[in-house]
């Protein structure tokens, strides 16, 4: 499934860039705030519990940041595998200054799901993935505000 969208952040681009390319920070924006371990230069792994109402699943996942063009764009790849199936998301993000203290992030990408969640849960997938992206961006913005306000 294709994903596409944009979000205006309340903070300057260089700080947002630092946050985005730091998986430890990104992890805190994901549902359940998983802890991540560094496994390579730009690669991390961790466990994440996703809960959508009564449906919950634990996923063991990897996160990596590639194609970095600081402080403007990069590619985030998230992969997770659990009892209910697997998820893989690849997103290209592109950031531009949007007036003083504002940064516009555009993202495009592709989300793949497989296994049980794909075969019997498709009805919810679009809504869930959009909801999770919105939630993660919101949290990232909170972190950004805290970080940039603190400087």
């Amino acid at each position: 499934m294709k994903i596409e969208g944009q979000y205006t952040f309340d903070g300057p681009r260089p700080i947002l860039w630092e946050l985005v390319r730091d998986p430890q920070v990104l992890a805190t924006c994901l549902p359940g705030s998983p802890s991540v371990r560094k496994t390579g230069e730009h690669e991390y792994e961790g466990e994440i519990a996703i809960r959508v109402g009564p449906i919950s699943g634990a996923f063991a996942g990897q996160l990596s940041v590639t194609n970095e063009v600081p402080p403007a764009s990069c590619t985030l790849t998230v992969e997770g595998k659990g009892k209910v199936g697997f998820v893989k998301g690849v997103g290209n993000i592109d950031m531009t200054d949007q007036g003083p203290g504002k940064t516009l992030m555009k993202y495009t990408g592709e989300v793949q799901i497989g296994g049980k969640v794909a075969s019997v849960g498709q009805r919810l997938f679009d809504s869930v993935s959009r909801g999770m992206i919105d939630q993660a961006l919101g949290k990232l913005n909170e972190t950004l505000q805290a970080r940039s306000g603190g400087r």
Partner: protein
Amino acid sequence: MTKTLIGQRVLRNEDARLLTGLAQFVDDVEIPGLLHAAFLRSDHAHARLVGLDVSAARQRPGVIAVFTAEDMGADWAPGPPLVSPPPTAKDVTFHSRRQVPLVKDKIRHAGEALAVVIAENRYIAEDAVEDILVDLEPLEAVVDLEDAMRPDSPRVHDDLESNLAAHLFQKKGDYDAARQQADLVLRRRILIDRGAAAAMENRGIVADWDEKSQHLTIWDTTQAPIPIRNGTAARLGLSENQVRVIAPFIGGGFGPKMMMFYPEELVIPWAAKKLKRPIKWIEDRRENFYATTQERGQVHDVEIALSKDGRILGLKDIFLHDTGAYDPYGLTIPLNTQCHALGGYDIQNFTTEVSVVFTNKTLVTPVRGAGRPQGIFVIERMLDAAARELGLDPVEIRRRNLIPPTAFPYEHGIIDQAFAPLILDSGNYWPVMEKALEMIGYATFVRDEQPRLRKAGKHVGIGIAPFVESTGVGPYEGARVTVEASGKVFVATGVGTQGQGHFTTFAQVVAEQLGVEVSDVRLVSGDTAEFHWGTGTFASRGAVVAGNAIHAAASIVRRKVLELASKHLETPEDELELEGGRVRVADIPNRSISLAELANLANPLRGAVEPGTEPGLEATAYFGPRYGATAFGVHAMIIEIDPETMMIEIKRYVTVEDCGTVLNPLILEGQIHGGVSLGIGNAYYEKLHYDENGQLLNASFADYLIPSATEMPRIEVGHMETRSPLNELGTKGVGEAGTIPVPALFAQAIENALADRQLEILESPLSPNRLYELTSRKEAG
């Protein structure tokens, strides 16, 4: 014969048991010590299997064993090919790649089995499946047919040069020359997508190895018990007599239960023998969606050449056929498509070429219709397009092209699914169409009703679609008919059954010959211990091939009965009649002898049996047709569409069928109703949605939409009867008839209802969403 049972609305022998819950289906088999199996299946459609750690699963309490491909050792081997490529046709390429019992190195479709857990119950088995750790290296999946044929496509089978599974070219006449003479040449691209058979009963198998008697008993939801018996024996190194396969009551098959062997049919008997314990595996519904075979995916590039008066001068059809990850069923489906693209029309010049394509999707084998609906969709869509271009009524263009009754047997000169030349045995097509037109009131509707309703703002449309159905193919079936000492009759055949009423229609054929009540004929159809020659129930052939074998056996028994009775009653045979379970002298009711007495006389406990004679009133006979009988039919429908929501309401639905001699009209109507409901599903409700990674997105009955009672219209059924010259009973098959023309009919009726939008439909299945997209695109573009 004193009374005629053939053609009567006889009630079914099997119903009382089915209605009270006593009929035994495979999942109803209970054996002391029975173990239960669950399979670990791949979440990925295409991946390399790197590692499989089953140690935790083996440790779980209640788990007896966990097997992987590695554990099968030398017993691991792909399934056998079911159908070889046609031996006679030239220009055939065929790469045989068959399903594997458990994946050894590479996963080729989502849901392919990686390991099996055998446990004390199914709950524990499923717990243990979740304990298995799988390490996969995902590969890019091959999903779209055209993409699969690109040179840079990933390959489903690494050892092949491409994803081409097979290629077959056939022609009659000279299409290119015909095209030169044509007034009108139309070209269209037609897409047909996949659906599921979705029998209510999922697949299942119980295997019981008796170590002491060295005997294996298998209960299997198969449409073909005898080939399963033979194949299992061969694989396990047993004599065929050590294996008994029972296909008890089957909860619907519709084709996929004809597939042999499924991986589970290879693994469960093997495991039962290895563990020396009975094992049951029952497929669940989610498994059924990706582990049971599917059908229909094709992409056609079609060209039709016509004269200006609407005569078809030639047809050219180049198409891709999706076979999924393996191709054990050979070319049956694409051959059916090729033959049925000719419809019931007199087409002299025809070129057809199919490329069968491997994809990372579930295997494709016949589903009720088996390639025929696609062929009919192609020709009927082209005729509708041509009628529009030429300003002809859709009925008129068909009338001008239907094969005339004088032309039968009509030889087409290409080969059919039985690898025999395609010959249409008999038919009288136009009167069937006329009857359908009359039943639906075509002329009045088009002339008066439709204009009136359109004026009132209603979008109503009519469709009428004729079709042929190749049925009753060989090679053969057999049967044994026995008059027992009680005077009741026992019939054994190997054909198998899937709910079509064989216990009754076959009993009628026997009762007719032997003058007994239908309810006094007991039939066993799917037990290799009772009869062990035959192939299976598929291709609308049960009533034709097994029916005629049973008829032949019953006729021999009738002769034996008459011969013996003649001696006993001291009356010439031609003065005897069989009725009410007795043989009596015509006109002298009290000079008679019962079948029971005759059966005892034929099997005496003392005295001498004459040399050269056989004991008992019993006969075994076989029937193999020279070639298949071709049935014909016409469906007509009136619909109303809400153009804002694209919801369709079926106002009238009419079918007229000519399937030769009708054995039991009640059962025939039931077959047609059921076929139409699958057809309506195919046309408008049912589609297997695979995403671009080969994930099936609707593996549940919540998302895979089978028509329910509130979606189905009342179906009005008419009959015509043109006997088949190929068999004694004059029957043709009908099992798939109801399904075949429905997608073509829907497309036609929708175009007619939305005439103001000038929509052309070149795909199946449809949905409100798709119709909205097509009409919006039309408006935008």
